[in-house]
Every structure is written in C-alpha cells, then in structure tokens.
C-alpha cells in the first residue's frame, strides 16, 4: 500500500494551488484564512488516512475537508464578531456553496486559479512578494522552499508572505480576474513576474544552485498554467515559447566543470528536442494570435538559434533585424549590445564594433562587464590582439560571477598567446 505522506506530498505539489484558489472564494477573498484551512485539511488527512484508508479522490477529499473547516470558521467568526452583517452574508454564501461540494466539479477550477494568479501578481504588491506568493500558493511550494529559492531565511520569507497577505486583506485587493479593459495591462504584470522567476533561475549558474528549487521549472509550470488559463492572450504564448526555447539549452549551457558555455560553442545534441519542439509550436501559436510584443521578438530570436543545426547555419541577419525592432519596442543598452553582436556576426566585426563604440560613447553601460567583453571579442576577431587584451582586462575588472570570470581569463590567455 502506498504511504500517506508521499501521496499527500504529491497532492500538495500538484493541487494545493487549485484547492486554495477554490477555498479563497468561499472565504470571501481572505487569503490567509483560506491557506490556514487548507493546511488544516492536509493535517487532518495525515491523521485520518492511515486509519481510514486513502480516499479514491484525495484532492476532492482535501477540498471537501478544507471547505467544511472554512464554513466552520466563518460561522465561528459570525458568533465572535460584534457586527455580524457582512460576515453573515459570508456565512450564507458558505452554506449555499456547501452542498454543491458533493459533486465536486473541477471544470470551473481554472477560473479560481486565474483569480489567484491575478491576485498574487497584483501590481499593488511588491514584485518579489508577487513571485513568492505565486510560488507558495499556485505552485504549492512550502515557505522554506520559497525562502531557499530567494536565498533568504524562512522567517524572513514567512514575514514577506504574511505582509503581502495582509495587504491583500487590508487594502482589499479583489479576488477577481481583471475587467477586459485592464486585462492586457494586468496580464503583462503576470508575465513579468513569471519571467523574473525564470531569469532568476536561469542566471543562477553558480554558488548555491544545488540548494535552490528549480526556479526555471516552476516558472515553466506557471507559464503553462497561465497559457491554459488565458488561451487567447498572445504574449502568454510568446513568453512560454521563450522560456521553453531557453530552457531546452540548459544542459549544453554549463560545462562539466561548471563553466559557462556560449551559444556558438554549445554541443547542440545536448539541446532538449522535446522542449525545443514545444517552444517552436508555442511561438507559432503566438504569431497566429497576432503576437508582436517584446517576448515574441525574444522568442523569435531564440527560435532562429534553435533552428540552426550548426552555429554557422544561424540566420544572423534576421536576428540583427529582430534586435533592431526590440531596440524600438523596449529600448535598453543591453538589447543594443546584443544587436551589435548580431550585426557583427551578420556583416563582420567592424560593423558590430561601430555600434559598440556608439554605445560606449553614450556612457550608459559603464559598469557592465559585457560591454568591454563584447568589444574585446570583436577586436580579437579583427586580429587586433593588443587592443583586445586591454578590453578583456577591463571586462575582468567588472565581472562578478566565477564562471564568467573563468571564461574571460581563458580568452585573455588566447589573445596574449596569439600576439
């Protein structure tokens, strides 16, 4: 017989968010109270299932238990409250909802999950709190896991989550899907939170990564969920495509000794074909929906890399054009630097160098190691080794992470040996 703790752990992981999402509505939008009763339901299962047997539908059992505890709690609140009118309404709602539970219908659960997603990612909450709340409630991570993911202590994270939940309650952040006129803007907020989560996981190639929850996998899970919940929002498909295409390269991106492997030196047979295919399909779906946003362009660039069997097959002219459009859509010196690199690949290093020089002259990226690193790389390819060495040394003075430092040191040795 399967053991209760492992089944509960699996259910927690897969369905905690859906159960909480449903119970929050019952509790009149009270996030913290809903989480408490769902946790009580899991605790009750841990006690009762070994005695009474594991129910055929663990999820439905837990939802029912949480629901009853929620109803009890609302009734108790009614008795305790000095002014009962609003709570009475809540209790009545709760009682009305209770019988429907016998035929638990999960088909309308997506609405609840969607409400939960938009509440977690409400712009009135801090960005870090948004991501933490989404991980905690929608992904069913424990507070300890979320804390580890953000490299903070569990009490710090618990406090952050409590503060966010209090704001939801006290400022009355509604537990609703935004109205159509605000949906686009609010969806952008949700996507931004998911992307932040993904980038956080993707950038963590050094240090404590073994302790970290796989943030990229969680971001993908949230991305898939959002995609399923908002099937007509084009940028959602774009973001999912972007994450899948990047994620498909994860094994090839880090060498055996933990070093960073750039795209042109990656072993492409290590790219995950399933994620790549799914990513390309999502991009097609996004384009069919009329997606033309920032994530679409980034995903299209990733797709051009994915479609190149060898580095020399890469369509750099297209990539440079896409970066050019990104410079207009979401101007940033980092995007301009990427464009310069793509132009260098498409038309020769001297064309790229001119763009890098412009960028340097603008003085906007002075503290960023990738600017001198890109410059060094172009000079190296143009055979100007001495100047390249100067630029590599400048990049080394600015670089922060160990794998990238090792990479630059190696390149510096190469140009010094060649001159």
């Amino acid at each position: 017989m399967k053991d209760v703790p492992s089944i509960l752990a699996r259910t927690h992981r897969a369905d905690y968010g859906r159960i909480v999402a449903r119970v929050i509505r019952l509790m009149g939008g009270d996030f913290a109270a809903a989480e408490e009763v769902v946790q009580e339901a899991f605790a009750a299962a841990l006690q009762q299932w070994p005695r009474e047997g594991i129910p055929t539908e663990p999820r439905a059992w837990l939802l029912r238990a949480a629901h009853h505890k929620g109803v009890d709690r609302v009734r108790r609140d009614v008795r305790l409250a000095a002014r009962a009118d609003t709570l009475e309404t809540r209790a009545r709602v709760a009682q009305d909802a209770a019988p429907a539970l016998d035929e638990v219908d999960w088909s309308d659960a997506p609405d609840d999950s969607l409400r939960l997603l938009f509440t977690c990612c409400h712009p009135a909450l801090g960005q870090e709190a948004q991501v933490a709340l989404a991980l905690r409630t929608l992904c069913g991570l424990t507070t300890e896991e979320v804390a580890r993911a953000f490299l903070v202590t569990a009490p710090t994270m618990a406090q952050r989550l409590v503060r966010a939940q209090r704001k939801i309650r006290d400022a009355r952040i509604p537990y609703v899907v935004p109205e159509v006129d605000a949906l686009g803007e609010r969806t952008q907020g949700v996507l931004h939170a998911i992307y932040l989560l993904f980038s956080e996981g993707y950038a963590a190639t050094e240090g404590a990564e073994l302790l970290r929850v796989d943030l990229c996998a969680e971001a993908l899970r949230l991305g898939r969920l959002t995609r399923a919940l908002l099937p007509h929002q084009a940028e959602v498909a774009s973001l999912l495509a972007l994450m899948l295409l990047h994620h498909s390269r994860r094994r090839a991106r880090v060498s055996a000794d933990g070093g960073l492997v750039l795209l042109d030196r990656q072993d492409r047979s290590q790219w995950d074909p399933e994620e790549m295919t799914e990513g390309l399909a999502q991009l097609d779906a996004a384009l069919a929906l009329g997606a033309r946003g920032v994530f679409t362009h980034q995903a299209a660039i990733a797709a051009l890399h994915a479609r190149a069997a060898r580095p020399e097959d890469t369509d750099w002219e297209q990539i440079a054009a896409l970066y050019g459009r990104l410079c207009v859509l979401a101007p940033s010196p980092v995007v301009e630097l990427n464009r310069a690199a793509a132009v260098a690949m498409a038309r020769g290093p001297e064309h790229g160098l001119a763009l890098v020089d412009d960028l340097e002259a603008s003085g906007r990226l002075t503290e960023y190691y990738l600017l001198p690193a890109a410059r060094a790389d172009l000079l190296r390819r143009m055979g100007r080794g001495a100047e390249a060495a100067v630029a590599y040394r400048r990049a080394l003075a600015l670089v922060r992470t160990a794998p990238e430092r090792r990479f630059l040191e190696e390149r510096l040795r190469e140009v010094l040996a060649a001159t």
Partner: protein
Amino acid sequence: MKYLLAIYENEKNWESLSEAESKQALDEYFAFTDAIQKSGNFIAGEALQPTTTATSVRIRDGKRLTTDGPFAETREQLGGFYLVEAKDLDEAIAIAARLPSAKWGTIEVRPIVDFSQSQG
C-alpha cells in the same frame, strides 16, 4: 470601503503654469469631482495651500515645539486629498488614475481603518 487618495505633486508646477493652463487643470479637477460625486464615490476632498503656509507641531518632554514648514522636505508635497468610497482597491486605483494630478504627480491610495469592523 473608504480610501484616501493623497495627491503628491511638486507645488512649484502650479506656479509655473500659464493662466490658460492653470484654468484647464482646475476645470479638469472640477469635472473629476463632479463625476465622482455623481457616481457616489465621493465622500470628501480638499486642496491644500502650499507648504510655505505649513506649521509643524510636536510635543517633546512635555513641551510644545512649533516650527515653520512641513513635516518633511520632499520633491513632491501633499497638495490635496480625496476621501472616496470604493468596493475594492482596483476601483480605488481606477479613480486615482483619473485624477488630473496623476499625470504629473503621484497619487497615494491608502485604505481607511474601519474600527467598527475590527475583529479577532
């Protein structure tokens, strides 16, 4: 639920407006006030005189200290407020976004404590 919409803006901006511009801004304010009165969201609203007229009062060691000037010197100052009734934060934010000053200043949206609703 009640929310305070606190209007923060650089009060020097008003001085630098031409007569026509300042009339237009005021007209927008009148129209806004009118609209939220009709929709039933309006509870109260006032504009404040500039911080040059402000006086700060504190009691320290039992002594009253009265000083010239606002509580804090900041780039944007509290210039006025509305007290509104809204069903939730989203509605309050939507009202705040319609305030003319949102275009050049910042509107801080703060829920009001309801002592009659306090519960365990």
